[in-house]
């Protein structure tokens, strides 16, 4: 990319713009949908923002301890990933986020590449959605929207990932896995 950008200096203005697009396209496309929660971050009592591209993930993988069961599972999960982006907000009181905050994301997930595989709404006001992104029949990304009255979380995992393994990991982080008796007919998704 550096060599390519180096040649840009001798190009016309339009060519330079095109060159810039080519140079930075991988950075722009790392995240599969855009989210801007600056408004919510200002209101939140607790905010988690994680943006990790592929190179950082692979770099971090070298520091994950294979003797630690959780870290070993994460190390295996991130093997083929090229990015993970998390925004999670906790609020002191309900009603700080609105459906409009999620509309921008949902509209981006209505394209043909994305398919909503799960949508759960509870009486307690929780709304959870999982979207899968497929390109040429291959899983290339996952989007998770988990909205509770006092908490909002959006996750974009870029790359192929096994959701069952990811869900299983959820029961290992000091939080008991919420196992429910499975139906004989299998999972309902």
């Amino acid at each position, binding site marked *: 990319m550096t060599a390519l950008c180096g040649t840009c200096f001798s190009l016309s203005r339009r060519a330079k713009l095109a060159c810039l697009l080519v140079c930075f396209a991988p950075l722009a496309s790392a995240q599969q949908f855009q989210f801007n929660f600056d408004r919510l971050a200002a209101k939140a009592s607790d905010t988690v923002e*994680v943006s*990790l591209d592929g190179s950082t993930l692979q770099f971090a993988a*070298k*520091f994950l301890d294979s003797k630690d069961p959780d870290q070993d599972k*994460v190390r295996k999960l991130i093997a083929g990933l090229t990015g993970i982006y998390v925004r999670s907000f906790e609020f002191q009181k309900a009603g700080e986020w609105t459906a409009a905050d999620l509309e921008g994301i949902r509209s981006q997930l209505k394209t043909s590449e994305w398919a909503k595989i799960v949508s*759960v709404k509870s009486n307690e006001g929780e709304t959870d959605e999982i979207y899968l992104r497929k390109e040429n029949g291959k899983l290339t990304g996952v989007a998770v929207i988990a909205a509770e009255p006092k908490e909002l979380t959006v996750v974009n995992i870029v790359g192929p990932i096994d959701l069952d393994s990811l869900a299983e990991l959820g029961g290992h982080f000091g*939080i008991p896995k919420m196992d429910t008796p*499975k139906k004989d007919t299998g999972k309902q998704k």
Partner: protein
Amino acid sequence: MDWLERELKGALSREEPPADFAARVLRRASQPVRPVYRWPRWLAAAAAVIVLAGAGLEYRQYRGEMAKEQVMQAFRIASVKVNRIQSAVEGVGK
């Protein structure tokens, strides 16, 4: 003040050097000068390289640990949410 003048005159009066003074000076001058010990430049450069490499490795370790913590945090959040959604879906079929 006479005594002071006398003392000064005595102290500053011209004296002839010993007879072998010139010979001793010449002998001493002909001896090789003992070099002042200086650290070799390559050793200073090597030390600098080692210090820089150590600092680089330390910084790499720090960045790695930070990245690892972020990865673990991201997966902690994602997995708990997916686990909850999956459990809710499975719960529907009960």
